[in-house]
């Protein structure tokens, strides 16, 4: 039986597939033209897309707005950078980042999940600020300068290896990881645990009545989202060769929120494309004026006001309608609606 969420996710997959094809075309064209700048910019946009995906997972499905998701992005980036300074192994760096994010997000999750709604937004905001200030003040972590001069490494995949300095190979690698996260998140939502997360957004009390531990489900969702952010962060120093406290600042978290909202909350793929749109817009508008924030701000507010589902939420709805019309039993699909019940805000 197909419920509404499954149809929505299938529509998301259509967009994701299109996006994947476009990304491959871009890589091909950029390689033929001998471009490295835009390829590396696109890699960076994808990495931040992972952070936006993490924000979207929490906001779109569990109904929690995190204003401090850059915390885990930063922890992943710093952990990866610290390992890379010692041993030039990507997989060790990744392992270090995963471990650091797992531990910190478990602690962070226990702290922030004590509160709900608007207080959740504020506490995530505060937590990231504290962590950013601590990093900023710690000389061992490079203080305000961050860690610079991270060596360029070779990434070993089972049968071959490539240099992180190779723009095409690294772009494809990042693309694979971020799309992997997208699929992982989509898969998780189809599992009973994922359904419980979505149910929390609709009505937290009833989830408890059904015998689920609300606390564990919330914590699980939080740690999962933090992992996506953290692993994306771990890729950052590999690409750019440095990390700085700015990665943890509110500006980074805020950009991820903007990307997720503009792209479309609850579409998963929208957040990734949204991040690319934002980075792209910054780069294009930034080439003729330094005041690009104003345009992004206006775009963001316009989307919040007039297109609450975001650009790809809007497009996805059109795709969904076509899918429903095509399906043999169109009435059945409308019965369960994951957005039907008003979420309880604190």
């Amino acid at each position, binding site marked *: 039986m197909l419920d509404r969420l499954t149809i929505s996710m299938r529509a998301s997959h259509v967009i994701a597939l299109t996006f994947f094809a476009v990304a491959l075309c871009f890589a091909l064209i950029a390689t033929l033209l001998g471009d490295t700048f835009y390829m590396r910019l696109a890699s960076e946009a994808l990495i931040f897309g992972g952070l936006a995906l993490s924000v979207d997972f929490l906001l779109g499905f569990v109904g929690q707005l995190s204003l401090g998701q850059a915390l885990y992005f930063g922890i992943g980036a710093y952990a990866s950078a610290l390992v890379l300074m010692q041993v030039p192994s990507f997989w060790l760096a990744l392992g270090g980042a995963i471990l650091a994010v797992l531990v910190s997000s478990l602690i962070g999750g226990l702290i922030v999940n*004590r509160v709900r709604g608007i207080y959740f937004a*504020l506490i995530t905001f505060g937590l990231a600020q504290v962590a950013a200030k601590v990093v900023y*003040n710690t000389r061992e972590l490079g203080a305000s300068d961050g860690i610079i001069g991270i060596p360029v490494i070779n990434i070993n995949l089972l049968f071959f290896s490539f240099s992180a300095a190779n723009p095409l190979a690294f772009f494809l690698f990042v693309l694979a990881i971020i799309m992997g996260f997208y699929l992982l998140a989509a898969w998780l939502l189809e599992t009973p645990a994922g359904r419980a997360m979505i149910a929390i957004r609709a009505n937290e009390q009833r989830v408890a009545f059904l015998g689920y531990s609300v606390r564990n489900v919330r914590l699980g969702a939080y740690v999962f989202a933090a992992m996506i952010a953290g692993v994306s962060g771990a890729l950052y120093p590999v690409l750019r060769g440095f990390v700085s406290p700015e990665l943890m600042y509110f500006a980074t978290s805020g950009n991820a929120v903007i990307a997720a909202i503009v792209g479309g909350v609850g579409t998963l793929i929208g957040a990734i494309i949204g991040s690319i749109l934002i980075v792209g817009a910054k780069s294009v508008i930034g080439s003729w004026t330094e005041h690009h924030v104003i345009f992004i701000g206006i775009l963001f507010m316009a989307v919040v006001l007039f297109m609450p589902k975001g650009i790809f939420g809007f497009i996805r709805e059109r795709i969904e309608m076509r899918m429903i019309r095509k399906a043999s039993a169109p009435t059945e699909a409308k019965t369960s609606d994951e957005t039907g019940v008003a979420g309880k805000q604190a």
Partner: protein
Amino acid sequence: MIDADYLQFILAPQVINGLVLGVAIVLVALGLTIIFGLLDVINMSHGEFYAIGAFGALALASVGLNFWVILVLVPILMIPLAVLVERLLISRVFSTKDRHVTTLLLTFGLALIAEDVLKIIFGPNTHRPDTPISGATEIFGIIIPNYRMFLIGIGSLIIGAVAYTVYGTRLGAMVRAAAYDRNMAASLGVPVRLVYTGAFAFGVALAGIAGALLAPLYSVFPTMGRDFILLAFTVVIVGGMGSIWGALVAGLVLSQVQALASLFIPPVWTEPIVFATMIVFLMFRPQGLFGKIGHA
């Protein structure tokens, strides 16, 4: 035993500095807490309104206006801006399901735009207007700059006036009624929409006047709202979102903590400590020290 010199030249001036910061923070936090208490809006652009007030004072001073005129003019000029924001943005999404999140996002977007507009108009550099009241006075051997004394005085006056308006007047009773139960207040003839717009404009005007007052002290730059607003948020959360007394007590206590802690630990560490206080409060007492406005 603390010796007299330490008391006179280090501790006491630091307490005074903390008091000045405290009064400033309370002015900004009051607006924030009134807007939250009444409209349930987390105003992420409040820091930018504070910055607009400071830049407004700067601009008015550059055309040769007197400081006292500016002090009256800035909050008056902020009101139409605030009314516009409330009517065009906030009231538009007020009845949507996720209005907490939506209004937070809208004001966040507004903050981004406002900051960039300030950069376009005034440039990214730091300005430092002249102190309108110069000189210093010695009280019990403690030397206090006159402008700081004036700030503490006028700040207390404004805070007192706000508290009196909210708790002692008929208008304040309407505001509290609207905060407690807006449907009931509306059915009893309180013009709730007008009260909302008015409260928002009032909060913004307070931020503006704080900006104008503090410009000579903390200097003026486009991102000045960002650092300040975090502290204001902390004050509002610790005091209780929507509580006027809470903002006052928390503002004065936290600014003293920050001022005095910087005597014992490196000043850069005082900020994380203050923010950590906010997290602890959010964890264990999210309603803050005092209840919400309108709830006794």
